[in-house]
């Protein structure tokens, strides 16, 4: 992601809080699906709940929509408590994973359905429907039935239907779940574009990290009913708060290590897997007695070479265990002398360049600011 993209995205969100979730908990029998979550959604942002299946993200979304009743906690828009409102009384609309287009109604009738429930005049409904059709570029298909549409077209109709009522909040449940991979990337950008044009606040649920990172301004990583970290895509990827987040987003090499020195501008760690000390270009200034730390290193920031780099820290020796050529980059699995396997990405910037081979002795090294340190 380029830096200009990041600034554009950040400018979309305003600082005003639209929706606040306060200590929401959901219990099924004895199982805790959502465990005491508090969260603010800012006006105008796209917020993604990202997690594996069973992490509670869908339950949280369904509680926002009103399909599930919270066991305890509150959901408020501004000062209004909407925790106990029925789904049909909430100013939110949802785009379902299956799209849930009414099979017996035309595209136009589907979009008009929500407006009719408000008792809007027929002429106004027609005007709004054609406006929505235009927004999603589906003017030509107004008279079609859902089964006569392709997957992408269905998604556009579902989006138009959920936006027709000017919802205060748009909920997206696995928005790309029913599309194949190629169409997915295309639709992700298109959906963001439409949401941006309408200017609606949006909460989405997904298990696909790429989707969350492409579409969302902020991401909440969920696991076992709890939020592990909230932040921008860059925060989440570059500064994960814990091992779970680091491992969930992308690949990572994690080393269990111990603090030797912890100063304001640097720290030194000892790790039995690594031949030299680990030098980190910033300190955590923990002051806590527990000296155990996790040192995490993304594979694309881990370099390898056959010649020994001229460094007295952040370098260790190993042999190439396995090589996976992926086109854009190659993944090297290097076995360190301790037996630990480390992943390194090598970008294929040259065609058929000289590369380390299987069983070759290599050195693994990284920059002082490449690694991330965390407690758990």
């Amino acid at each position, binding site marked *: 992601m380029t830096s200009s993209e990041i600034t554009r995205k950040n400018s979309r969100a305003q600082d005003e809080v639209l929706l606040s979730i306060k200590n929401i908990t959901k219990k099924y029998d004895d199982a805790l699906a959502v465990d005491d979550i508090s969260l603010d959604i800012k006006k105008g942002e796209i917020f993604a709940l990202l997690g594996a299946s069973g992490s509670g993200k869908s339950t949280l979304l369904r509680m926002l929509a009103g399909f599930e009743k919270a066991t305890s906690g509150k959901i408020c828009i501004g000062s209004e408590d909407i925790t*106990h*409102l*029925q789904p049909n*009384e909430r100013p939110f609309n949802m785009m379902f994973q299956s799209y849930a287009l009414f099979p017996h109604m035309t595209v136009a009738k589907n979009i008009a359905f929500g407006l009719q429930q408000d008792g809007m005049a027929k002429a106004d409904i027609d005007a709004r429907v054609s406006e929505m059709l235009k927004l999603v570029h589906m003017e030509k298909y107004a008279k079609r039935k859902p089964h006569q549409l392709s997957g992408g077209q269905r998604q556009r109709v579902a989006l138009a239907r959920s936006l027709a009522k000017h919802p205060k909040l748009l909920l997206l449940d696995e928005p790309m779940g029913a599309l194949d991979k190629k169409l997915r990337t295309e639709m992700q950008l298109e959906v963001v574009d439409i949401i941006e044009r309408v200017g609606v606040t949006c909460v989405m649920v997904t298990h696909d990290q790429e989707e969350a990172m492409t579409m969302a301004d902020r991401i909440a990583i969920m696991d076992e009913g709890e939020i592990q970290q909230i932040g921008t895509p860059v925060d989440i990827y570059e500064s994960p708060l814990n091992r779970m987040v680091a491992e969930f987003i992308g690949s990572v090499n994690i080393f269990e290590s111990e603090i030797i020195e912890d100063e304001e501008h640097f720290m030194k760690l000892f790790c039995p897997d690594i031949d030299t000390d680990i030098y980190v270009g910033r300190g955590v200034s923990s002051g806590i007695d527990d000296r155990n730390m996790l040192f995490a290193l993304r594979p694309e920031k881990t370099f390898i070479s056959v010649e020994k780099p001229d460094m007295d820290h952040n370098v260790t020796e190993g042999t190439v265990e396995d090589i996976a050529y992926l086109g854009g980059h190659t993944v090297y699995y290097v076995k360190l002398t301790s037996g630990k396997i480390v992943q390194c990405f090598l970008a294929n910037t040259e065609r058929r360049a000289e590369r380390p081979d299987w069983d070759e002795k290599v050195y693994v090294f990284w920059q002082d600011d490449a690694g991330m340190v965390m407690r758990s």
Partner: protein
Amino acid sequence: MSTYTTIKRLLPKGRCLILSGPFLWLLVFFLMPFIFVAKISVAEAELSIPPYTAMFDWIDGVLGIRVSINNFLWVLDDPLYVQAYLNSIKMAFFSTLFCLLLGYPMAYAIAKAPKEQQTVWLLLVLLPSWTSFLIRVYAWVGLLKNNGLINGLLMWLGIIDDPIQMINTNFAVYVGIVYSYLPFMVLPLYANLVKHDNALLEAAADLGAGHFTRLFRITLPLSINGIVAGSMLVFIPVVGEYVIPELLGGTETIMIGKVLWQEFFNNRDWPVASALALIMVFILIIPITLFHRFQNKEANL
């Protein structure tokens, strides 16, 4: 907030309304009748309207309760009744077996037919069951009679000189039952078989299984639910079958449905008929529970 409270007040009401309609109907018209069957089975027959003694009487401030187990003793003591029960179970068992032997290959053939032909084939099997059951049983009377079509044909061909006695035998009853109940066997079997993943058979073949192995180790075990459902759908009603033994059976065919009918309509002995019904329900409780459990399992899939 006020709309919320009104809605909340209304909602459980709507739910209760939906719940109470069919629930009350079934309680009053399906479950309650069995209470009366039980009540009358412990009464005694009497020449009155209705033709049984009252359970409670109130004489000089004394409540008398009259419960008689004579009907049950009478039924269990009389070899005719016991024989009728045993015979019904035996005939239901063999009819179910014949239906299964004929119905399984039929259901299999439909399930393996091209997708667009399946509904046509299934319709072909089900269509007769939508026409009158009574008339289909009656059709066999004309075929199986001594001067009926089959005997006539065989005699005309010179295969036999004298007609074979077929009508009024157990054979005719078996034919009639299998004929009438076959679609009930085929339908659940088909519904089950059609869900089987063909890749399982291919995987088995790939691992070296011949088609008998595939049939007995893959298809049959996977279709056990369909077999149970189809068998129960045939077995249970056949135990109480009346019309078929009445039209096609003879004196040798003593089935409990027919005996109950005679006790009720010919002898007007309501208490004994009730006792017979109650014992029949008792016998059928296990297969009915089996069927019910299967229904639930299918519904939850």
